[in-house]
């Protein structure tokens, strides 16, 4: 009896194991097991806050999306469009303001830890003046959505066709840290292309080619 149980476990397990193995082996180069990938970022920038609460348009920062293959990660000076003023969360600044008023003094600049990293990358000091000793360095973000080298995805084509960012990137505006939602497998791409050829993109008829050379060259 005991032996039989062990055999059963082993059999089930081995079957399971091998199915996993086979599944793993086919297309192992496609990042389809990357679904849910959500790496630590140098600055824990919140898309929920910026895209969700503050309703900032995706392309306000990811300017490449419309005109280039790459959506592009915004350069630090893009952040400075707002963060040259907003150096910390609003209520913290307000408290300081009130405190300063009560003490009849100028409010000291307050810089949140998160933004500190941004200013460091721009080599800015406490009062957001350029430091002379340091040089600006770009922030080493970790890429979340990766495609194999032999696959060419072009943001421009999809944006100008009216495909929403969420269609591939998921509800980024609700994510604290960006997470890969779709598996980005070839099948996923192709099936979307098939759908839109039938249904069109938000009403507009489109031609999404399923030729190999659409993505592979």
């Amino acid at each position, binding site marked *: 009896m005991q032996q039989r149980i062990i055999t059963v476990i082993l059999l089930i397990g081995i079957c399971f194991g091998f199915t996993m193995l086979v599944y793993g082996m*086919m297309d192992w180069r496609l990042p389809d097991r990357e679904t849910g990938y959500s790496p630590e970022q140098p600055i824990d920038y919140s898309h929920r806050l910026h895209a969700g609460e503050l309703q900032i348009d995706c392309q306000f920062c990811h300017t490449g999306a419309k005109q280039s293959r790459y959506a592009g990660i915004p350069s630090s000076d893009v952040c400075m469009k707002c963060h040259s003023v907003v150096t910390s969360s609003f209520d913290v600044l307000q408290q300081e303001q009130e405190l300063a008023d009560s003490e009849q003094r100028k409010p000291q600049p307050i810089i949140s830890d998160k933004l500190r990293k941004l200013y460091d990358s721009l080599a800015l000091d406490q009062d957001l003046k350029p430091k002379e000793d340091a040089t600006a360095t770009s922030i080493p973000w970790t890429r979340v959505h990766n495609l194999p080298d032999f696959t060419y995805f072009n943001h421009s084509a999809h944006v100008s066709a009216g495909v929403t960012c969420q269609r591939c990137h998921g509800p980024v505006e609700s994510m604290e840290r960006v997470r890969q939602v779709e598996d980005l497998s070839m099948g996923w791409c192709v099936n979307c292309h098939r759908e839109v050829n039938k249904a069109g993109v938000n009403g507009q008829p489109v031609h999404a080619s399923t030729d190999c050379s659409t993505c592979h060259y």
Partner: protein
Amino acid sequence: MPDSTTTLRPPLVTGDKTLSDVTRDICEPMARRPTALWWGAFSISVAALLMGVVAVTYQIATGIGVWGLNKTVGWAFDITNFVFWVGIGHAGTLISAVLFLFRQKWRTAVNRAAEAMTLFAVMCAGIFPLIHMGRPWLAFWMMPYPNTRGPLWVNFKSPLLWDVFAISTYLLISAVFWYVGLLPDLATIRDRSAPGWRRRIFSLLCLGWDGSARTWHRYETVYLLLAGLATPLVFSVHTIVSMDFATAVIPGWHATIFPPYFVAGAIFSGLAMVLTLMIIARKVMSLEDYITPMHIDRMCKLMLSMGCLVGLAYGTEFFIAFYGGNGFEQFVFLNRAFGPFAWAYWTMVVCNVGIPQLLWFRRVRASLPLVFVIAIVVNIGMWFERFVIIVTSLHRDFLPSSWAGYAPTIVEIATFIGSFGLFFTCFLIFCRIAPVIAIAEVKGAAHLKKPHAPQRESGAEKAA
């Protein structure tokens, strides 16, 4: 009832044997320790095999570039060997299945070995399409399995895909055919061997065979069916192999005659290989009583006729090229006969059409050494046939600007030798672990004389 001795046909089994003699004669060599001869042959084969393994490993690690191929000649040794080995395989099935259907009793002496040969030959053949790929580790892409690419299936219009199915089917069916044929003999060995691991293994393998007439009855049906399936399979397999070329557009490949031509060639080469092996086995395993000159003689006749058939095919090719009036086609054949690879072409013609004509003479057929030599020669010739078809057609095709040459590298040659190593290693092992001759079938077919004066055994009385 008719006494077998009065029939005009020569007896299938000579030397006045009883059933138990038959069993003993065939089974005992397996129980005995291997002879020095066997060891010698075995070590040579294994050495060759290892050489092949090294070559293939190097090639897969470095790239197809270690072969002598180029932008114009994309196939040479690899596919030549593939077709060569598949061809070898075919005679096995032919002998065991087709002759079975034609109720040729003499086949029983050779069919087991022939089937084994098929199996191993097809194994050797299967290796080449695999390693000839630029990225063999992706070979499983040839299988239509559901995948995350759309799913993206395979191209069922490609002869190479037909090959994949044909060869794997052929391998599996041959294996089943062989195994089913083995079942009763495995039981015999089980019953002969004393209790122990040997017995356990065989009783595991023979699926509890007990010789019940009901089972025999069904067994016969199944065997007949398998034979009936295997026969068209053989023809289909080599037809498909020939289509690798026939469906191409390259002059010299694009020929409707290829399917019959290839099948004939395959059987031809296969017979030659069977003969080679049987002549050796006969000596080495001392089975003279079972593989009689009569068997050899029949095989020779078959081989001769196939040789003539192949010769006819060569002639037809030339005629069609001339008669078809296509300049490219005509050029290819002239180029075969008088171009840079003329030497290969004429080797082929002499070996396949010229020398086998000696077999018209009974004296030649009767002399084993001669037959052996001729068989070897035919094997060589048939290898060159495939080489000629593949390389001479490719190296000078439509546009003269890309005409090229070809010469094999050490790696290719080593791989080729390695395949022989694999083949003979498998065959020698088979000789040791399984009956080389189908015991049950010989018994059935031989229709041995009834032993004189049946000795009644005691014990019948006790029943009362």
